[in-house]
């Protein structure tokens, strides 16, 4: 059966690709080093598949029809989507191998377990998938299964809900008959308010608190204290992307290792990176 061999989480602010060099050099170095450590973590665990959980910024679905979860089932993924390419400074499209057998298995097995997911053969990518793909899988050695979560419009899944979905996804992935070695990646956050009145706002008190929670490794405490309201207060419509981290956390045990944290007004987002030494 497939094995989950690792779990990690990263910010996906478009500044990490689109206007990376606009940030001070120490912030650039922190990002470069953190992503480098994440690549080494995957190599050490001999991973061959990345399942990236992110949020769709109203790209794949119009606002009148937003599924809570969408799985990309294509055999190849091409990104970024038109219109996002110049924004993400990717004039040349990246092409990454998909894993349609695993992706389709996830869709069907989740349905049998009561979780409805949409799926797309030609999923479009904005910063949510493009940032981790370009930084973590630059040479296309890993297969990619992208899974998006609705963090855009109410009702947004709560931390408790995504945690349960994370547990279910873990069971499903580990029941897929193959030798695949899978790393789960949560993509989103930290504090920011994309397109909101506080577009330039960063709440580093919240960020430090949240990263400390990750480092503490007490899942019940995370679910009890990291409420939707608290994330919204730290930056509406952006901070709540951290539900992708909480979903991935459901496949882990114990503390996360915080690789770094950057408060970057250039990127209009706080960036953070963690890996979990132990997965279930």
């Amino acid at each position, binding site marked *: 059966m497939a094995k989950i061999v690792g779990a990690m989480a990263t910010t996906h602010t478009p*500044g990490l690709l689109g206007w990376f060099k606009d940030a001070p050099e120490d912030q650039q170095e922190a990002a470069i080093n953190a992503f480098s450590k994440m690549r080494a973590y995957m190599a050490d665990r001999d991973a061959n598949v990345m399942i990236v959980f992110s949020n769709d910024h*109203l790209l794949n679905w119009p*606002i009148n029809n937003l599924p809570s979860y969408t799985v990309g089932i294509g055999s190849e993924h091409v990104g970024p989507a038109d219109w996002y390419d110049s924004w993400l400074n990717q004039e040349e499209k990246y092409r990454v191998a998909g894993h349609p057998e695993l992706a389709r298995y996830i869709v069907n097995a989740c349905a049998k377990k009561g979780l409805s997911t949409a799926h797309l053969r030609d999923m479009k990518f904005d910063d949510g998938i493009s940032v981790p793909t370009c930084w973590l899988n630059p040479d296309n050695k890993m297969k990619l299964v992208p899974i998006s979560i609705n963090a855009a419009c109410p009702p947004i899944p709560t931390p408790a809900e995504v945690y349960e979905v994370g547990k279910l996804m873990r069971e499903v992935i580990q029941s897929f008959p193959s030798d695949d070695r899978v790393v789960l990646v949560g993509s989103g956050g930290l504090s920011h308010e994309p*397109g909101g009145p506080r577009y*330039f*706002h960063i709440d580093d008190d919240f960020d430090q608190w949240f990263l400390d929670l990750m480092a503490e490794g007490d899942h019940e405490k995370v679910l009890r204290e990291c409420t939707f309201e608290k994330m919204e207060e730290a930056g509406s419509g952006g901070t709540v992307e951290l539900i992708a981290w909480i979903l991935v956390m459901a496949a882990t045990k114990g503390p996360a290792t915080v690789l770094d944290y950057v408060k970057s007004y250039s990127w*209009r987002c706080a960036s953070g990176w963690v890996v979990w030494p132990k997965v279930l």
Partner: protein
Amino acid sequence: MGNVERVDKTLPTNEMVYYVRKDPELRKRWNTDREGVCREFGLSQIEIDALMGEPNPKILMDIGVHQYLIPHILRLTYGETGMTNTHPALTAYQKAFPDESKAAIGGSKWDLAEEKNG
């Protein structure tokens, strides 16, 4: 209530931007026949007025445009690339939300007030 919860999911503008962004012809028409595009998507006069000329992010937010889509409306209007804090889309935010912006980047190299004083 967070700002993102103020969205009007049924507002025609929110559906229109989804389609305009991904269609090169509609993107071109955005700057040559914006009102015509808006009318084809059934926007109200209030929405059309808010989108003409130099759209104000605060007005767009007040009528229920999703906050994710407002920077895209501004990119359609001012240009796609280089979304640094000096891009007109971002200076439009500083003008529309001066207090919120000042609380974050007041006194920095991006602060429009500093630029004027400097």
